[in-house]
């Protein structure tokens, strides 16, 4: 009985902190999906580390009772990577926005993908900058009007799935916060997957993006599973990654685009062959003398 209660307690992932999101914000759906995934995977909250950057969606760690870091704008990937390399026994989840992940932190994303570090990175993609009151974002569609692009966006949007797959991500998926059940499955898959998982989530901003709304997405999106998409085939995955652009956003696929098994960074780093760094014994006097002796 006592053990059961304890287990229940550990599964209570809510910190009780009220999120800062506007009513109707897509991030509520992502919150629900992450909680569902953690609960179903039954991961003890003390072994979860949620790392965010800066932005509306980066308030995510605050609503959890797990360990977490609310880091700097664009830097969640290196902070999460450092945490994972220090203690790869932790389940490390990154939660941030499109500006954070594809804009200011875009360089880190590419390198995390090619390293195949075992973290799950959930990008809440609302195609706008919400917390700074509505400027354009790296995923904003051409022509989209914002405070910083009053005459319409004139840059191509980032293609998150194509970017992640070509950079070496071993799990690339896209979800919709309007369908948290489906999203929870993608997040569960990402956490269970050994390697770098990018989950891009359409998470509408009800305040600053009046183009890409729930109503805009619903008739356009469809689930790849229903088409029996072969996510092990990189060519097919890349083909699907470009389908939204190709069809002028008539058809917007969500679901698992690509998944492949490859050794993780932690598997290959010689420094981690004896287990997580934090659990490894300290350097012995003999070892220290040895490294000094190299200089004779």
């Amino acid at each position, binding site marked *: 009985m006592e053990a059961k209660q304890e287990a229940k307690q550990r599964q209570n992932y809510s910190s009780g902190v009220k999120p800062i999101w506007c009513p109707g914000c897509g991030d509520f759906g992502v919150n629900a999906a992450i909680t569902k995934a953690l609960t179903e995977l039954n991961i003890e*909250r003390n072994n979860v580390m949620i790392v965010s950057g800066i932005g509306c969606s980066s308030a995510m760690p605050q609503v959890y009772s797990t360990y977490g870091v609310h880091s700097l704008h664009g830097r969640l990937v290196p902070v*999460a990577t450092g945490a994972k*390399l220090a203690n790869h026994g*932790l389940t490390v989840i990154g939660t941030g926005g499109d500006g954070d992940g594809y804009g200011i932190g875009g360089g880190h994303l590419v390198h995390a993908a090619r390293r195949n570090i075992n973290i799950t990175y959930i990008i809440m993609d609302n195609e706008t900058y919400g917390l700074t009151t509505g400027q354009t974002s790296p995923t904003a569609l051409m022509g989209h009007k914002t405070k910083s692009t009053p005459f319409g966006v004139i840059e191509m949007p980032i293609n998150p799935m194509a970017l992640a797959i070509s950079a070496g991500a071993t799990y690339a998926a896209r979800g919709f916060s309007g369908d948290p059940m489906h999203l929870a499955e993608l997040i569960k898959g990402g956490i269970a997957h050994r390697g770098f998982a990018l989950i891009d989530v359409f998470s509408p901003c009800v305040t600053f993006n009046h183009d890409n709304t729930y109503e805009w997405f619903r008739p356009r999106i469809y689930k790849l599973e229903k088409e029996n998409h072969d996510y092990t085939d990189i060519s097919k995955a890349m083909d699907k990654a470009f389908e939204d652009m190709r069809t002028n956003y008539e058809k917007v696929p969500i679901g698992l685009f690509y998944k492949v098994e490859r050794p993780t960074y932690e598997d290959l780093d010689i420094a981690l062959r004896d287990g997580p760094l934090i659990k490894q014994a300290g350097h012995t006097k003999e070892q220290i003398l040895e490294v000094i002796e190299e200089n*004779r």
Partner: protein
Amino acid sequence: MTSVCIRVAGANGDGVESSGAMLIKVVSRDGLHVFAYRGFQSIIRGGHVWNQVRIGDEKLYSHGEGIDVLIALNQDAIKNQKSHLNKGAAVIYDPDKVDAKELEGKYRLVGIPLLDIAVKVSGDPIMRNVVAIGAALKIVGIDLDVFNDVIKSMFTRKGEKIVDENVKSAEMGYNHAKAEKLFDLKGDGRSRYTMDGNTALSIGAYASDCKFYAAYPMTPASGILHWFAAHENKGVLFKQTEDELAAINMAIGASNAGVRSMCGTSGGGFALMTEALGFAGMIEAPLVVVESQRTGPSTGLPTKTEQGDILFVMHASQGEYPKIVVAPRSVEESFKIAVDAFNLADRYQCPVIIVMDLYISEHIESVDGFPLDSVKIDRGKITAKQGDGKFKRYEFTADGVSPRAFPGTPGTEFIAPSDEHDEYGNLVSDAFSGIDEYVEIRRKMQEKRMKKIETMLERESVFAPEVENPNAEHFLVTFGSTTGPAKEAVEILNGNGGKFGLISFSYLMPMDKGKAKKILEGKKLIDVECNYTGQLAYVIMANTGIDIEKKILKYDGEPFTGEEIAEKAIALIK
């Protein structure tokens, strides 16, 4: 004390570096002291490079003034180095390749067919350097047996043929220079280690149980990167990152997860790291950062030295938070400061920045060893026991230091936020800032963090300068790597009837104002620094109100020598 400066000069790819390294090993095994400094450029082949190996029968504190023995490997070496030759210097060169006529009558010319001998002995032209080293050893009075022993230990695994060729080549050079013995250096028979400051610092970090180092390559900090990379099979993880932003943020992530972590770079990379430095200050993550300065501004002179970044480092990142800034004064002290830096970072949960420069990072010195028994690891306030799920990671405490827990521990879960937060780590920024209750929390939290400065000043004794010759009439004032040459200057000055002392800083921030003022007050001071504006003098004035008007400043990329400081000091007090 007797000391001799041997300078090997040639082009990149001539083996200048390896010749210097061989000389350093030979003399340090013989119980002589070494101080070596390289002149090099950002070029992989060509250019003009040199390696100055100063050898002494007592501990040396600088690379020395001028050249006593020049090994000129090409014509450029004569052209570029002749102005540095000391009176009576010997010049070893190959008359088949190098024309030394212009030096005739002024210096002892030791012409040896280096290449011809090398090709005859081994067929390998690069062995000409070994022939030259043999000649140099004869000139400075070092026995060939010492050389032979070192060669055996260095090359035995490469095979007997290699050993024989080296021994034979050196012997030929030695015999050629038979009549040229100019010095008689005698070692104390004690074999010493030789290493640069980057290596000593890395070993100090290793001895302190630093297990994580992240960096992006940048001269002159790359030596630390290479050290950690080479020791990944000995219980450290090195990560080469995509940029310096990643390097420091990974180190912060790893430190927050409980592993002693460090990152390192030079000024340009540090500029990229500054935002994250304040982040570490805000989430109170212990962190050691190395900033090895080179000549600035901007890309500057990537392979030359300067002490121009200390004000930048001391004031890096927005807002106010406790940080410790320290500049090691010698190779040996780089070890000790690394050890202390990790303890201070853990005790006060703040960033510690070790400010090196190219001179201290890359010059090689003979070292007796390190006091391993004095290495004590103090992780500070760590909560080991399981919590009740309501952990106050940022608890208001009398000393400003809050309890820490390592992620993974049940019941001590917390969020480390870059935003202002309450004792639990909950944000007070987005939804609550400006509301009375939270205005109060912000005030108390800022006071809690800043209180740590008072606490460390109270508990630690390191935050004041050291004085040598307290009863002297004049004092040189230095910090970091300039301290060694200044120490030599004091010896030279006092040897000529002067009354000079030395006041040197390693810890620059925070400063124990009372102690510093007491030490500096009422003394005739001369500030000596490798920068244009006198940044240490500025720091001293800000902390003590004492304005040091006399300054010896250098910003041409080259480090000070003792002679140079002594000469300028004399001129200043006249």
